[in-house]
């Protein structure tokens, strides 16, 4: 039996695809199809008698796919619901449940969706401590509400051979847990294949990131989140490899033909965090009103050019190493990782400025904002910090965000020598 709330979202994704049918960026339509199919599989898992694994960000989807389990990234589901209509009612419910507003709204929404039964009941929950300390708590709450067993993967703070080995043991424990819960055995040949495909995705993403740095920047704003979403949801699958091959080919073609995301690129921007999901059209507004393209964003950036794949016969070691390379690594480990990432990408991408959306619920990133600003200032890169909530649109209105962005663009214009006055 399919979940009607999830089905409604899938229908909205299909409608969204129709709205984008005239886009000149072909991967957008492929992306929307992929995501709709992903959620359709999650919604059909029970009917097809496949175990559904509810998980949060940065879990090893390769392991799930290798065991023919159906993954459902619950936080990502919440973000898509935010794009497609908002999660205001869930945030109210979270408050009624007793979750204070200081908790990240992504997690409040996720917990409330669980209470409401807004997604099919996962048979198992899995989370990693990697993204933030709220993640395992959210999974524990969800597991308790749904009366499902759960597993928390512990992610070490720093990257060393010792911590890679530790992580391998964590994955071994996870596999044992999944085998016990589902009655399925891990097929290690399938796992090696999934890991190989996942690495192919990384290679393509890194290639795309290099191409994105071209002048003019080739990737339109609609491609930014697509890159992160498909990687987080589908790493380890043929679908992801096909999608990123398409995206790489499209971006490369644009670079070869000097076609930018917008005709007259005026400003190149770095996004050291994410953009408010309740109004992604802010990126389009920046493009159209100010000729500003987002060249690079944190959730697309891999560590050390993504070279995590070593011995093809050691899939768990490869996956363990991937943990410290995949986008998001910057938030969990030492702050120096984040700062180096921001600085290097600001230089390589030749950015004029950085827009830092300071999500009020995020301590991992919030604690780093001042340091990020200071490092960018040393490079001469202007930055603006916009206090907001990336999911709860009642905290900061679009008008407030636009006001602050306009002030930022005035500063950029002045630097270019224009008067900066707008109509």
């Amino acid at each position: 039996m399919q979940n009607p709330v999830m089905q409604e979202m899938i229908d909205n994704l299909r409608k969204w695809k129709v709205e984008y049918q005239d886009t000149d960026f072909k991967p957008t339509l492929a992306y929307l199809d992929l995501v709709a199919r992903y959620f359709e599989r999650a919604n059909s898992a029970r009917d097809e008698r496949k175990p559904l694994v509810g998980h949060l960000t940065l879990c090893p989807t390769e392991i799930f796919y290798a065991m023919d389990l159906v993954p459902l990234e619950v936080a990502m589901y919440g973000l898509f619901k935010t794009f497609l209509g908002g999660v205001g009612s869930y945030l109210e419910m979270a408050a009624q449940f007793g979750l204070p507003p200081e908790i990240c709204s992504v997690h409040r929404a996720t917990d409330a969706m669980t209470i409401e039964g807004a997604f099919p009941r996962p048979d198992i929950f899995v989370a990693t401590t990697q993204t933030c300390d709220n993640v395992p708590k959210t999974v524990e709450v969800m597991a308790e509400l749904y009366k499902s067993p759960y597993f928390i993967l512990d992610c070490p703070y720093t990257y060393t051979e010792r911590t890679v080995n530790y992580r391998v043991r964590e994955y071994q424990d996870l596999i044992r847990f999944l085998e016990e819960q589902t009655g399925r055995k891990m097929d290690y040949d399938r796992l090696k294949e999934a890991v190989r495909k996942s690495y192919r995705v990384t290679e393509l993403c890194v290639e795309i990131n290099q191409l994105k740095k071209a002048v003019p920047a080739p990737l339109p704003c609609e491609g930014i989140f697509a890159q992160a979403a498909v990687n987080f949801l589908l790493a380890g699958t043929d679908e992801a490899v096909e999608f990123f091959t398409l995206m790489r080919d499209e971006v490369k073609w644009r670079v070869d033909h000097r076609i930018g995301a917008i005709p007259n690129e005026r400003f190149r921007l770095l996004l050291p965090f994410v953009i408010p999901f309740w109004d992604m059209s802010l990126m389009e507004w920046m493009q159209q009103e100010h000729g500003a393209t987002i060249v690079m964003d944190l959730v697309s950036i891999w560590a050390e050019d993504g070279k995590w794949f070593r011995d093809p016969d050691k899939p768990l070691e490869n996956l363990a190493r991937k943990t410290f390379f995949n986008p998001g690594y910057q938030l969990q480990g030492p702050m120096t990782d984040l700062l180096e990432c921001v600085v290097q990408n600001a230089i390589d991408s030749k950015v004029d400025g950085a827009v830092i959306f300071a999500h009020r619920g995020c301590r991992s990133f919030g604690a780093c904002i001042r340091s990020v600003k200071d490092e960018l200032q040393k490079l001469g890169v202007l930055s603006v910090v916009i206090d907001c909530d990336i999911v709860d649109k009642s905290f900061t209105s679009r008008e407030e965000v636009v006001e602050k962005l306009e002030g930022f663009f005035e500063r950029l214009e002045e630097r270019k020598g224009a008067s900066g006055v707008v109509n």
Partner: protein
Amino acid sequence: MAVAGIDMGALATKVVILEGDRILAATTLATGETGETEAYKAMEEALRQAGLKLEEIKSVISTGTGRKRVLFAQKQRTAMSCHAKGAYFLFPQVRTLIDVGAESAAAIRLSADGKVEDSVGNDKCAAGTGIFLDAMSRMLRVSLGEMGAESLKATGTVPISSMCVIFAESEVISHVHKDPPIPCANILAGIHDSIVDRLFGMGQRVGMEPEVVMTGGVSKNIGIIRAMESKLGMKVLVPEDPQIVGALGAALFAQQENGIRESC
């Protein structure tokens, strides 16, 4: 050749007519519900003071929260930029500007050539803004105009710990009803310290460097200025009319836009 800047804030609309380096007129009127009507009225008053007609104004630039409602303005500019521009014109040595209006406050760091290097604003919360003072004024039955001077008579200060205006009101009430009574001046001093603590915190986020200038209606309060000087350990500069600085900045941008003044 005269230009005009109009700063439509939440509570007050300010107009400056500028010719060269001379301010020909500066007016401040209450912003009404429609905004646009009051903008016209403020403009008319400024024109009357300057002895000019609207047709003689080369360019009008609007700023402030209501800038998009000033339909007779040719262009707009954000409040942050205009306040920085106006403050730098008045005090070229300014490096930190703190603007405190009725409903918002901002801390802006400027470069030596007057460009905005960084800024942070508080437009979410009444704490640290004019509304906070207004609420306290009504509660303590001391007029807004007298609060500052009265606070300087304090023999001590009481801490107002709450960040929220509503909770701060409760604290003030409890201080008022203490036995033995706490002098009103001391409570006022605590209120002023509370606002300055917020503003100081904002300033620290952008990095406070001398000279520090304060603008906006709240800077007409001598108690706030002295409290800030005490906190900073240095003198704070305040324009003669701190409310018009945004409108002045907008007028300066109008000159720049029309080639009357070079960009800086």
